[in-house]
């Protein structure tokens, strides 16, 4: 997926037209450790870029998922309610969080490219 983009807060966003799938990165899941609870937004919720859109909890800590883009939530990954650990197993695949209809495609251009994000995490680790 060459068009996948990232935030400085370790979310990823993958567009298919105006629909963007959002999740957290492998680095983020590794830092948090095994997830035990995920609170997803309600379908129909309008969120702004940078808003807290979901809550994630591991054994040790709670964190949030900030929306990489502005828009309206159109679908959430309900399977995470029963198996939050799938975010650890496959953070960019089965472990996606929600799909959002993007309001302003130019926001997407401000996110990090894969190589920029890889540069960021190599500095962190």
């Amino acid at each position: 997926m060459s068009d996948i983009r990232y935030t400085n807060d370790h979310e990823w966003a993958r567009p298919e037209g105006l629909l963007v799938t959002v999740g957290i990165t492998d680095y983020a899941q590794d830092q948090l450790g095994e997830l035990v609870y995920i609170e997803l937004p309600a379908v129909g919720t309008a969120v702004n870029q940078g808003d807290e859109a979901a809550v994630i909890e591991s054994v040790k800590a709670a964190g949030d998922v900030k929306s990489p883009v502005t828009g309206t939530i159109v679908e959430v990954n309900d399977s995470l309610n029963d198996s939050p650990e799938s975010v650890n197993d496959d953070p960019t695949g089965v472990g996606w969080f929600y799909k959002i209809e993007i309001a302003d495609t130019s926001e997407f251009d401000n996110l990090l490219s894969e190589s920029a994000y890889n540069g960021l995490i190599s500095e962190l680790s």
Partner: protein
Amino acid sequence: MDKAGLVSNKTPLYALHCELDAKIVEFANHQMPLNYPSGIIAEHRHVRESAGLFDVSHMGQIKVTGDSATELLESLLPTDLSELNIGRQRYTFLTLDTGGILDDLMISKFGDDYLLVVNASNKHQDFDHIACRLPADCTAELLDNRSLLALQGPLAREVMSRLCPNLATMRFMDTMNVEVEGINCQVFCSGYTGEDGFEFATNSDDALNLAQLLLDQTEVLPAGLGARDSLRLEAGLCLHGNDIHPDITPVAAGLSWAIPASRRKGGSKSGGFPGSEHILLELENGSTLTRVGIQPEGRAPVRAHSEIVAPTGESIGEVSSGSYGPTVGRPIAMGYVKSTYSHLGTELQAIVRDKPLSVKICHLPFVEHNYKRL
């Protein structure tokens, strides 16, 4: 080494933790393993089902010796050391004039010496607290060349029966001086997980050899501080700094059982420890606050410092520890509520991210203890 907390210390097992690819975190001024690659949940389950090895060398070991050491320690601890035989250890706490808990600890007797094992974060403070009250005929030493390893789990006994048959007959809270494959150890049949197991105090030079010997056993996997915390929470055991602290009394904490009759009102050595007036009064009349088990009804963990609210909307307490319990498979917590709300089954709310979540007062521990008692 640095009392001001400016230097981060490493235990003798630091290189081993790195070699095992542990995630290292700073805890109580030490570089400690939070978890190994298998993760907190897998390590937690392995301890409940088999045996896990913890490096707890960051904890403090304080040796107190001298003709009046018993009197000195009984003036600081609400315990009765005449009942503490060589070969046994006991749980007690340093109290403050306010009745609060300065630290909780394990005390044992080896020959003429008392050994206190205290919390890592408090060891310098505890040592100063004792040292500044030392009579001329006593000495106190914060041992800086000793390490502490904990082997915990239902198969720990099987492992040790193979390596050191002398340990096979030990019962909960027994202590023993032994050689394990040539390594001199003070062994304690106790721990902080609710499981059967042993703790080994050794010279720091021997700690790595002992750890490697134990990790070579098929039943044993390394476990980090993350699993140690989730195990002790399931076992309903207090963490100083969270569940007990200088503003909490032993009675509120539900630790009255650790205060023997002889130190209570009418006992042969009644009172005479810091805060004893307040604590003895609370033993008679009860405390305003009570530590309780808290069962969140949903799946969201309820963390330390979450406010607890009565159905009337009144704020009646706070969560002191909360996480996910890997063995029970759901979120668990404990905390303090006004004693009138402490009955089992009382329905309350915890405020999490500004939203009220339903919780119930529940029995502690969440996982029954598996100690091999006398």
